[in-house]
């Protein structure tokens, strides 16, 4: 009923290539953007910003980066955490070497460093695929985290061995560091994530996106329709690592405020991979759904029992969280291997058909 498409005629290929061929999708997105830009900032408190809204956006962005590589181009990667680290350390060096540099420019530039590193570690993909490639990216994961620990220049020889984000202002407002307010950080993250998501959607629906998907589905056939496998794979590594790097810079500068090398270790890689898989590989929407699930679940588990008069110890909450997320991942993979995004696609299809079954 709400999704009835009757009366929406497409009279040109331009209309057919629109982002939302169904008008209701555009309304839905407008509603979500309204929530994100107006309603949430007006109603949320400091805790909600720091524990839910900002991390959801940052994790969704990291998962989007991974999804471009794994879901679209079919190259499995286990090094996401380390590439986020490259973005974060690059941003840290940029703002300390060039203190006058605008923070947002520094964050966008830091992505290029992780893109370069990503391409370098993507070179094995030209010869190996599948699990073997995953092991090669795992090598990147271990090597880079080791480098973050041992190369003191990266963290400006801090005695703590970690990076501490100084207070950085953009146009007079403190955006990063101890004096920044959560709402300002949220808005900066929201705008960056929204813009990158829009650009990523554009890439994935055009020539380059088709090229990646062709390589994913059958690389030999892709080569025989004239796709240069080297270009396709390395461009996927570059774009993916750029987005992951920007997510890493946001992760440290606009959310956590400090980071030690171990923060970028393999649990972070797995976390982002879970988000991408639960959300749905090969979809942009799925990254957001997966991030909402993975980030919101611990918060719900820790606050819900207390609010109904069942206070749990923090250790208990942590164990419960691990168990429930593990069970959910298995459940989702059995019920819908294509993730939450496919759930939504099925619901939407049913709504369009409603009240008829077919």
């Amino acid at each position: 009923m709400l999704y009835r498409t009757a009366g929406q005629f497409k009279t040109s290929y331009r209309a057919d290539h629109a982002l939302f061929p169904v008008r209701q999708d555009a309304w839905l997105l407008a509603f979500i953007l309204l929530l994100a830009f107006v309603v949430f900032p007006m109603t949320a408190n400091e805790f909600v910003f720091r524990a839910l809204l900002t991390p959801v956006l940052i994790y969704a962005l990291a998962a989007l980066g991974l999804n471009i590589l794994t879901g679209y181009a079919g190259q499995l990667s286990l090094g996401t955490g380390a590439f986020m680290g490259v973005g974060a350390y690059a941003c840290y060096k940029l703002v300390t070497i060039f203190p006058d540099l605008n923070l947002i420019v520094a964050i966008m530039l830091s992505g290029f460093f992780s893109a370069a590193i990503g391409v370098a570690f993507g070179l094995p993909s030209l010869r190996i695929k599948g699990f073997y490639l995953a092991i090669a990216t795992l090598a990147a994961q271990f090597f880079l985290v080791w480098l973050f620990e041992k190369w003191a220049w990266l963290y400006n020889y801090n005695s703590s061995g970690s990076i501490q984000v100084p207070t950085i202002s953009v146009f007079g407002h403190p955006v990063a560091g101890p004096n920044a307010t959560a709402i300002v950080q949220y808005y900066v993250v929201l705008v960056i994530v929204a813009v990158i998501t829009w650009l990523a959607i554009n890439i994935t629906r055009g020539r380059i996106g088709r090229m990646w998907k062709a390589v994913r589905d059958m690389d030999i056939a892709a080569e025989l329709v004239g796709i240069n496998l080297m270009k396709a794979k390395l461009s996927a590594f570059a774009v993916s690592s750029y987005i992951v790097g920007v997510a890493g810079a946001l992760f440290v500068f606009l959310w956590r405020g400090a980071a030690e090398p171990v923060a970028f270790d393999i649990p972070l890689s797995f976390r982002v991979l879970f988000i991408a898989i639960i959300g749905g590989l090969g979809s942009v929407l799925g990254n957001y759904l997966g991030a909402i699930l993975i980030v919101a679940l611990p918060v719900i588990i820790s606050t819900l029992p207390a609010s109904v008069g069942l206070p749990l110890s923090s250790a208990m909450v942590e164990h419960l969280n691990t168990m429930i997320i593990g069970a959910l991942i298995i459940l989702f993979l059995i019920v819908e291997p294509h993730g939450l995004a496919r759930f939504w696609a099925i619901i939407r299809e049913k709504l369009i058909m409603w009240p008829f079954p077919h």
Partner: protein
Amino acid sequence: MSSRLAEPIAVAEQGAGEMLMEVRNVSLSFGGVKAITDISFDIRKGEIRAIIGPNGAGKTSMLNVINGFYTPQKGEIVFRGNTRRAMKPHHAVRQGIARTFQNVALFKGMSTLDNIMAGRSVLMKRNLFWQMVWHGPALAEEIEHREKVEEIIDFLEIQHIRRTPVGKLPYGLQKRVELGRALAMEPSLLLLDEPMAGMNLEEKEDMSRYIIDVNRQRGTTIALIEHDMGVVMDLSDRVVVLDYGKKIADGVPDAVKSNQAVIDAYLGVAH
């Protein structure tokens, strides 16, 4: 129509057609296995050239050599005046050689439309920056190519499956989508590896009609491998016959049909 239909055959008989490709003394082996031994033949512009032979004769290996997937140990290939031995398959596509596969090799997760659009990747030029912006040149290019793809979709009568993921399509339609993807590359030479394998009579007739139409209307030169002798003899202008990696006959269908070496290769000889 009948006069147009007869024309290329007449040309072939006179042996006067302009040369499109020439295979010169090509030999290919994998270790000790000789797949192709010293084979030479040519393909003329505008003809339908069949490559036939019993199983394991080296037909598919020959196509793989032509489109650069295999590099022959000896010999060379002249295509539109360029001589080469080794090349990357995506360069072959750029030069105008497209092909389909014996086992359907489509991009299963993508829709029919996207599969055929992927065939036009080489013809699309807009770089990453314009792709990101989308509106403007990239969209204009996308629409321009969409129009060409829709022509192919109309031609192959697959409008109804435009949005269907090809993995869900029946085999006969998949073969047709694969032909569409090859046509989208606007090749001057189209290689078809058993386009009718596993099809029923009706599907074979449809596919034959498309192959003739591609050849006559679009002027595409076709080299095809096929086991259905009725189809081969009716469709092709000239036939080259391989057996155990060697060429045993080459000529118009009628001559090949009555060639003793060909009959022996297919029926076997008493020793």
